[in-house]
């Protein structure tokens, strides 16, 4: 199992979410984060004085998938998050040891994505 962590622009999220859902990956998490990188900070001016904010708001997207699905998810993120400008973000891929569904206590790769209609029946 792999965990894919992507730091992306806010506006990239919606198309990524839509496509992942379409491809069968409805389960994901996002968080509002602030970070710094090569992208310039933001200068705020307030009553004549200025204030440099060296971190910018980004979205952190987290998806855990089976190993075989990793390239598909990474490729989807790349396609929608890339504008070619500094500040597009980064993707990290981490190994995941275990996955447990809290409601049932099930373990393993089958808990990673949502139930199929047959499972729910």
């Amino acid at each position, binding site marked *: 199992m792999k965990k894919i962590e992507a730091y992306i622009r806010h506006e990239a999220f919606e198309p990524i979410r839509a496509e992942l859902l379409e491809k069968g990956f409805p389960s994901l998490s996002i968080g509002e984060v602030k970070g710094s990188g090569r992208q310039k900070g933001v*200068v*705020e001016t307030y009553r004549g004085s200025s204030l*440099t904010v*060296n971190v910018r708001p980004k979205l952190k997207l987290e998806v855990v998938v089976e190993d075989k699905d990793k390239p598909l998810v990474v490729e989807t993120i790349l396609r929608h998050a890339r504008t070619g400008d500094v500040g597009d973000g980064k993707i990290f891929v981490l190994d995941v040891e275990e996955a447990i569904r809290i409601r049932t206590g099930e373990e393993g790769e089958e808990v990673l994505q949502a139930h199929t209609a047959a499972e729910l029946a």
Partner: protein
Amino acid sequence: MTKRLGLGAALALVASLALPSIALAQDATEALKLELDLVWVMLATILVFFMQAGFMFLEIGFSRGKNVGTGVAKIFVNLGVVTLAWWAIGYGVNNAGNKIFGESGYFFSFAGDALDAVLAADTGLMLFGLAFCAVSLAIVWGTTLERIKFGAYVVYAFIFGALIYPLVAHAVWADGLLSDIGGKAVLDFAGSSVVHLTGATAGLAALLLLGPRLGKYGPDGKPRAIPGHSMPLVGLGVVILWIGWFGFNGGSTFATDDVLFAEVMLNTQLAVAAGIVGAALIVRLKSRALDVGMIGNGAIAGLVGITAPAGFVEYWAAPVIGFLAGVLVVYCVLAIEKKIDDPVGALSAHGAAGIWGTLAVGLFASPRLTGDPGASGIWYGLFDGDVAFGGTLGQLAVQAVGVVATFVAVFALSYAAFYAIKQTIGLRVTEEEELAGVDIASHGMYGYPEQFIPQPEYPSTIPVEPHVAGTPVGTAAGHAVGAPVPQRPTSS
């Protein structure tokens, strides 16, 4: 002798100097009445200016958190520009004169302190009229939130305050074109059409040239909600507008010598109440949810609807007008939303309800209040034997002409003005600026800094540890915005 012993004594003194003493008591009473009228109009002026705070909070509440500071700046700059435009040119255009524009009052100057029938040599009316002009201008921008360039506010505010609003006000309220259509005048008590339809029409012109906010319409063309960041602010804005409206409608009596100003205020209250009920009912039936913003729109629609009829209809008609305005606004918002992006519903609450209010005069105006059976509403033509139906139908037609003429004139002038702005300084911010929010992009600051700035730089005397190889934190020490980020040493 100059020391005032009391208001009555002072007025008696003024009267005795001006006129033979025979009619002294009567003149003193007359002077007191005029003084009281002026006090009421000035109090109403304050209430109408307070409506600017209402527009500020309403628009800010309906915007996202990244576009809130701009709303504050806009209200202030607009008020500044429109006041100067009105003083220099607008009041003159709006003033009495020929059929099209006024012929006196440009660069308004003091014309004597004699209280006369038009209240203190026009000074009171000049300020009262300015407050109305500023309200009309504030309505324009509701459709343009979150994407318009700030410069457009400044340029258009001048054109609007100097020319567009004064032309409409002159046409209806200063014996202009719309006050004599085949012997009948368009009846617009406080400005459903003059103020509200004018503002909304200009807003439509701006909106058509601006286009929707990014993300408003999905790839399938369906509208998506872009929720405003604060319903409590919207509520505060609506309540302030509501309170201001008592001055807006009530002050338009210009007199306290009978009960009419109080009648007008009660009509206003009955209409806003019914507007809220109407909008709440319809939005609940249509969407199964009591949409907070839509109920606020219903209140505004009720107020706009009663603005033209306030001084012409009986108490029973006010809630009918308000209720239908509230119903209308919900259907209009839902219909308009499908095609064009009006973030606060100004086209519906001010435009559609303004049209309805102006036409409602032709339906419900009572002969008691118009003073002319021929100018009363169709209701009386149908059910009151003393009122000829033909005359009332004619009045409704005149009201419709007023609506169409106002719409066409304001749309043409505003579209031309906004088109010129678009071709020169530009009308819309760039895509990057829109995504970042116009607060930081146009004003260099956030309306809610803590939401965007995690921790302000501390102007520290403590030595700062480097956090990127060799680069200390903070602008002062060289990690300035725009400076190249130092390359990490290639170690291996």
